[in-house]
């Protein structure tokens, strides 16, 4: 790998250049079967067990379009305010790669199912309109595993290919260049992907698990001199697969490209690799000898011609738009504007919503996700959704707190265990022995000892200075190693002293 390139500070770069963003998001649909055959799509199945002649590209096998995938594509298009093509075709994108069974990908080219849409995202109270160029259907490739120290194809000892993923339906959503974001470019990019995730979850068309690859993001970025109103040469950073990384990748590319441009170098039009660990991008394929995919209409498939009545029915059945949805939730939950904005900004809206649905109060759900859990996600450099804690877990922990079975401090230890993969909250409570002591006798003895050991504090309380009770509670909790219900301890102390 070459030496790290020069970077310009983000602030300086934004003074001298206007960034333009473009985002290409691949969404794996959650259909029960693949795009062109009846194979199952379950994630994590043993390699090459969900395959058939069609998705393995065996000679003679033919594709048949998955109707549910078309329906999902149309619904996504409608939710993004796109026009739906009354007639469109699949095309073959021809290129050789070992994880492509047919050495062509059945995709859509110049006739996407959905096109010319828009959506809006909010960053720090400012609304940005994102124009959608197209949303088209295609099939996923197989998955190559390069075995060796490098982890990439170069330098691998050998490679394995799992075709379970080959043929899983994908929708590729492509924005038009997003301009005028200024220094908010990284946040707009992140907010757009978070927004898409919420929208897709609301539609129920995908699991949108970025860590499992069911939502994958390619980030295009270019810089133009401030105020020039032009578009510069762009790079395409592939597979930026977390919200956090989207933000970081944009920020990094702005600094890198700016440094090159002020040094009088040109930005090379190329695909770049994103390195999650180091937070940098490195050069991949150069695109100057523009790859020729020799697209032509897929002759094994008939055109897709969704009838108007069907499209209108799907439109009528769409869930409420995200903005209205959020407004309604905010009202229901009694969140302030700021609280709501923080929740959305953290990519936690859906998590909070599900936590509430699982029984927690809105305040508790927000508290856990936006403070303790957000801190953990940040420390680990992962998205909240990928932390390994589910909304059900959070609701259960809160329920344990409400029932007095754990206190806040113990609750945090329960989350330690859940994040560490030790099981459900109840399992962690059991295995770590985290339940608060509800043995009144033991508690009562501890309170007596605390009173004996702190006669001056006890005297103050007897004199009516109830505020001093905190010191005694602290002593009791210390003795009980935190495993006591602080409320009950307070009651006991006051019973004994007043």
């Amino acid at each position, binding site marked *: 790998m070459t030496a790290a390139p020069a970077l310009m500070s983000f602030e300086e770069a934004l003074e001298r250049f206007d960034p333009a963003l473009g985002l290409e998001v691949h969404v794996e649909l959650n259909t029960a079967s693949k795009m062109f055959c009846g194979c199952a799509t379950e994630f994590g199945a043993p390699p090459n067990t969900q395959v058939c002649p069609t998705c393995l590209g065996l000679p*003679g096998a033919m594709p048949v379009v998955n109707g549910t995938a078309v329906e999902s594509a149309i619904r996504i298009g409608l939710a993004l305010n796109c026009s739906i093509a009354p007639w469109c075709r699949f095309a*073959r994108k021809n290129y*050789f790669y070992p994880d492509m069974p047919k050495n062509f990908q059945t995709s859509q080219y110049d006739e996407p199912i959905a096109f010319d849409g828009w959506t809006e995202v909010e960053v720090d109270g400012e609304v940005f309109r994102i124009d959608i160029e197209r949303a088209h259907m295609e099939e996923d490739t197989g998955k190559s595993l390069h075995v060796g120290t490098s982890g990439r194809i170069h330098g691998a000892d050998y490679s394995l290919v799992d075709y379970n993923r080959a043929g899983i339906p994908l929708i590729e959503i492509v924005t038009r260049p997003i301009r005028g974001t200024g220094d908010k470019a990284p946040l707009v990019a992140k907010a757009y992907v978070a927004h898409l995730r919420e929208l897709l979850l609301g539609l129920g068309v995908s699991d949108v698990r970025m860590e499992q690859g069911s939502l994958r993001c390619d980030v295009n970025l270019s810089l133009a001199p401030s105020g020039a109103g032009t578009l510069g040469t762009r790079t395409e950073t592939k597979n930026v697969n977390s919200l956090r990384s989207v933000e970081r990748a944009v920020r990094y590319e702005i600094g890198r490209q700016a440094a090159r441009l002020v040094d009088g170098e040109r930005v090379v039009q190329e695909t770049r690799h994103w390195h999650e660990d180091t937070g940098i991008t490195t050069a991949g394929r150069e695109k100057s000898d523009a790859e020729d995919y*020799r697209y*032509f209409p897929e*002759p*094994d498939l008939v055109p897709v011609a969704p009838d108007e009545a069907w499209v209108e029915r799907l439109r009528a059945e769409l869930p409420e738009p995200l903005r209205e949805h959020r407004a309604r939730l905010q009202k229901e939950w009694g969140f302030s504007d700021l609280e709501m904005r923080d929740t959305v900004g953290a990519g936690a809206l859906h998590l909070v919503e599900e936590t509430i649905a699982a029984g927690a109060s809105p305040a508790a759900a927000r508290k856990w996700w936006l403070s303790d859990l957000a801190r953990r996600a940040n420390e680990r450099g992962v998205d909240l959704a990928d932390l390994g804690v589910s909304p059900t877990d959070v609701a259960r922990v809160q329920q344990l707190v409400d029932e007095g079975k754990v206190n806040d401090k113990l609750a945090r230890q329960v989350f330690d265990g859940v994040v560490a993969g030790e099981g459900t909250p109840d399992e962690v409570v059991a295995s770590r022995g985290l339940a608060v002591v509800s043995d009144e006798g033991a508690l009562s003895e501890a309170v007596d000892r605390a009173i004996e050991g702190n006669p001056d504090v006890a005297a103050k309380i007897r004199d009516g200075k109830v505020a001093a009770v905190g010191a005694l509670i602290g002593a009791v909790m210390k003795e009980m190693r935190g495993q006591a219900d602080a409320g009950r301890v307070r009651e006991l102390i006051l019973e004994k002293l007043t």
Partner: protein
Amino acid sequence: MSDLVRRTAADLADALAAGETTSVELTEAHLDRIAAVDGDVHAFLHVDREGALEQARASDERRAAGRPAGPLDGVPVAVKDVLATKGLPTTCGSKILEGWVPPYDATLVTRLREAGLPILGKTNMDEFAMGSSTEHSAYGPTHNPWDLDRIPGGSGGGSAAAVAAFEAPLAIGTDTGGSIRQPGAVTGTVGVKPTYGGVSRYGLVALANSLDQAGPVTRTVLDAALLHEVIGGHDPLDSTSVDQPVPPVVEAARQGAAGDMKGVRIGVVKELTGEGYQHGVQARFDESVQLLVDAGAEVVEVSCPSFVHALAAYYLILPSEASSNLAKFDAMRYGLRVYPEGVEDPSAEEVMRATRDAGFGDEVKRRIILGTYALSSGYYDAYYGQAQKVRTLIGRDFASAFESADVLVSPTAPTTAFKLGEKLDDPVAMYLNDIATIPANLAGVPGLSVPSGLADEDALPTGFQVLAPALADDRLYRVGAALEAALLDRWGGPLLDKAPALAEKETVR
């Protein structure tokens, strides 16, 4: 040679029904015939004696139990090696698929099995169905039973020769630009290309997906109709298959054989006669038209001016689709794998390159290069795009011709069988042999070739082509059977009776 092998499939079906023979007996008779003559003819790439006999025994058991699976239950069939057959090698005549045994059956093969037809084996073909002579098979050419020094047509020369040499009563072919009909013409047999989508393509290793169509290869029109009924019909696994019942082809063949052509308008295609057609071919064609007139048909001349561009359009569309279809042969998952010489630790790409270099023959490489070029950015509109426009025009020519005629007719191929090797070095001369058959594939309409006699100058078979509108395959059978009946009258027996007897080798079992 057992007399059984000379009988038609319809006769054999009757004999089975009457209990005069058994499927095992007649399957064995054909296997013996194959063993006796195929050393010279080389119609088969793979013979499945055990499998065929097992299916024959099962057929006999069904019949004994009074539950035959259909009219052809027990009548054996040969299948072109371009169709996937579970457990039977499928090479498409190419080295690159040597040793590949499909884990699944083509839908058409499933239908043959379900109808009880024992599969004798897989027939020879030009590599990936590219050719008009079967000389492009990587496993050596098939020889025409009429003259072993001549080509049996192509790409389905194996299926046609197998039927002509009495090695099989029935065979399956595939026709992308004439690969069923032209071999039929030059071997004195019957071949039918059904309407595009009439027979499932699932499991047919695609040459050009928008042109390919599988169909029957037989010795009589009625046999073709019987086989057509077995293999035709909608298949949910093939999106391009027609979701309609198979036209009443058997009924039409029987009706035609009765000889009444009154009210049928026969359109002679001006562009498919005259210059470029061998004298004897043209003479037999003209006589055949007269026989149909004698039977009551009305003859009109029709013009299809766009047909002159058909060959050019075909040789852009076909290679374009083929270049993409053949990309899957990359040594990664099945078939041949060749490691490049002198390269240590070759990359996947290097293995792909070496395998494709070694595994594909020259004609295949020629068409991959043509197709890759035609689809390239900057050339797409000029080549693939223009060719599609020609295709539309040819469709319109057909539509307007079918306004004044119920069927169109022409010679099937412009010449009789040429000598092996004669056109190998001249691809365009080879391509020209399909000049009369290609328009039907471009428009998706059905076509049939029926023997029309022997050319005076070389005493070799000539073919008469009938074309009908899409989904009106029954018209082919009505007209084809009428002409066949009239010609049989004139000849006093089947044309193949005039073919020289093949030397039979001692059968060693």
